[in-house]
């Protein structure tokens, strides 16, 4: 049974902030097959294409038939916890600070035995379900969950090291004017966020949904225009030390390609989307990275909402797609830099949203509420990449199969 975590008390400003430390980083190249799966919340094991054997740890040849034709395939999550230990005296500083730390040996029904971090409700000799998670170092680790849901299970301390759960965390949603921003605020509130800072450029201008937004307990409207560097710097000076999760809902979507449009429109897209991201990262990134191990409400995650067309240009929204691609590239830079603090960067890839800027685009489209729910589930599940909606999933699959085909097909 997990005791529910308590709302953290207001922090004593004279107290030193504990610096983030990380679990061990090195991995073989092959083992990043698990990193990939963990990023998307899939459970895979390496399997031999020649003889079907499941194996672990990651290999370069099959231990049954020596075939080099190995793939990371979806695998059954079920196993039995054979043995467990509480490590009281670990060697690494990260684990020393969190000791005792509990791990176990899980015999998978499909064959291999895995060393796994244990959820507190896992019992020796009993069935467990495994998932791949990204630890604070951003590397894949096996995590064993009890077979069935248990009370307060997401409050488990070892699980909280894997997730970026909004519960009791303070969130900045950068744009409260958009439908996605408003839905995100509501969903994060429902998920237990304690304070919701909601950015508004030109807050005196009224907008639909304003009343409902302001009525949510814990919402604090803050002035923020991400395209304006000074605005971002000022806000960070004010609240930068208490943003645990940053949800970048900034959007600037315009239809059209390259030819026959004014450069200024393209520049606006870059100013808002790309430079807006740059300003936010430069102003909020350092404080978040420093607060990655700051207790129950440590800095935990940065969420970007990106178009799936960041991965493949959609000429109908061509210049905007390119700005999204720039944001995607930048997110990988930010991810590498925030990793030192154990702070995740989550990219949510969506197809066209069901909002006014995609008015002429035929369905299927993604409802703003679905985006909001996806943000919460990515945070709670500790994901890094999430594809939302049929279009995003479709593009992802087609890209994996043949990127050239996607290019031609999107361009006609």
């Amino acid at each position: 049974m997990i005791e529910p975590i308590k709302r953290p008390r207001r922090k004593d400003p004279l107290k030193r902030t504990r610096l983030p430390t990380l679990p061990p980083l090195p991995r073989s190249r092959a083992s990043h097959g698990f990193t990939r799966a963990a990023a998307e919340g899939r459970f895979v094991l390496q399997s031999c294409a020649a003889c079907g054997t499941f194996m672990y740890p990651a290999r370069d040849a099959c231990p049954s038939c020596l075939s080099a034709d190995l793939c990371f395939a979806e695998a059954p999550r079920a196993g039995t916890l054979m043995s467990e230990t509480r490590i009281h005296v670990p060697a690494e500083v990260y684990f020393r600070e969190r000791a005792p730390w509990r791990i176990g040996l899980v015999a998978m029904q499909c064959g291999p035995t895995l060393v796994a971090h244990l959820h507190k409700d896992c019992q020796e000799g009993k069935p467990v379900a495994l998932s791949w998670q990204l630890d604070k170092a951003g590397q894949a680790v096996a995590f064993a969950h009890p077979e069935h849901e248990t009370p307060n299970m997401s409050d488990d301390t070892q699980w909280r090291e894997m997730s970026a759960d909004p519960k009791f965390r303070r969130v900045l949603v950068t744009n409260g004017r958009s439908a996605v921003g408003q839905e995100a605020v509501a969903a994060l509130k429902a998920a237990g966020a304690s304070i919701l800072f909601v950015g508004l450029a030109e807050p005196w201008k009224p907008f639909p949904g304003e009343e409902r937004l302001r009525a949510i307990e814990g919402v604090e409207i803050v002035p923020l225009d991400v395209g304006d560097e000074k605005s971002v710097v000022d806000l960070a000076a004010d609240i930068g030390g208490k943003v645990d999760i940053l949800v970048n809902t900034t959007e600037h979507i315009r239809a059209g390609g390259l030819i026959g449009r004014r450069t200024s429109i393209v520049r606006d897209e870059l100013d808002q989307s790309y430079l807006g991201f740059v300003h936010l990262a430069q102003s909020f990134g350092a404080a978040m990275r420093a607060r990655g191990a700051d207790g129950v409400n440590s800095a935990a995650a940065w969420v970007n909402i990106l178009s799936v067309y960041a991965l493949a240009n959609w000429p109908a929204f061509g210049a905007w797609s390119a700005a999204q691609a720039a944001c995607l590239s930048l997110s990988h830079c930010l991810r590498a830099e925030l990793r030192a603090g154990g702070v995740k960067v989550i990219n949510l890839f969506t197809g066209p949203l069901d909002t006014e800027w995609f008015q002429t685009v035929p369905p299927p489209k993604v409802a703003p509420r679905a985006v909001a729910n996806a943000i919460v589930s990515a945070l709670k599940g500790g994901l890094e990449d999430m594809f939302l909606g049929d279009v995003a999933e479709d593009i992802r699959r087609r890209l994996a199969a043949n990127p050239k085909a996607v290019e031609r097909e999107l361009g006609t």
Partner: protein
Amino acid sequence: MPSSARTPYDRIVAAVPVTIPYVRYSAESAQWWIGRALRALVEGAGITPRDIDGLCVSSFTMGPDSGIGLTQHFGLSVRWLDTIPLGGASAIAALRRAARAVQAGDAAIVACVAGDTNHVDSFRHTLEHFSRFNQDAAYPYGTGGPNASFALIARNYMRQYGARREDFGKIAVSQRANALRNPHALMKTPLTLEQYLAARPIADPIHLFDCVMPCAGAEAFLVMREEVAASLKLPAAKILSTIERHNAFGNDPVQFRGGWAADVDELYAMAGVKPEDLDFVETYDDYPMIVMMQLEDLGFCRKGEGPAFVREHDFTIDGSFPHNTSGGQLSVGQAGAGGAYLGLTEALRQVLALAGPTQVKGARLGLASGFGMINYDRGLATGAAILAGPAA
């Protein structure tokens, strides 16, 4: 008794057991420790370094050197060279390799040596870079070396076979009693079962006195033909039989037996002796639980009877089952790869009646075993040897 198809050892002997007394931490290098052991070998044998024409070396901390670098470092010109990275199984493997080289005439006098330094941070460094599987699938879980891995193996074994902490404690306590007679043991105070049970937990069910203390030190011996030993007037122990096995029983979900179990019949058949003929046993004791596993797998009792066997016997030097007579790694210390040699050099001293204060009365026939390399979730390397003294 089944017969062995392997070529028997033909009057191949091991001699001049050397132990360079251990220290907890050393500012010296592994090469310094190995050099001291080589010097002790030539002095002990009454030979010169030029007489050594074979070298076999094991060390975790001599990087970036391997055996070849050491030949130039120590001015040895050898015609046979081996570097054995098998951790706790290195000594048995070294004995096997050297014995065959000598028997085939590839070398006349082989120096087998293991030595490691222990700088303040070298143990953690060794753990971090131990193996690819460990790096990928164990170290990131806070295992911080073998403690947690053995904890998982021990807990499974306890549940399956009813072993209790008291049983492991009896092994540790007996070894401490033996160590008090060994002036070189790092542990110099008595240990009671109460103290053992009350020790702080390291990784349940492993507590402080289940763990070895990493330290610096070196161990060595020579392998040669019996007649060479005689011409040098060296007391020498005959190699009767050896076994070696790696990655046995890979389909056991959790390790409850080691590779010895695959080869134990061969071990006794080749030596032409039975377990009860042995006068003493030196097992690999990185944890008492692994000792218990060896008692089963080396044929002193059946699988699962380890706990009962421990309860029924006295493991001290003068007891019913003299075991780890020097005090073992648990009480002497674990000098890296030297830990693999500790039991073997002590076994040589026992059968050669050179053990002094730890001497088992009338010891003529003994067994030493090795266990090593927690590559991921289990120890992969196992080995054992039966040695006979001149009186046997």
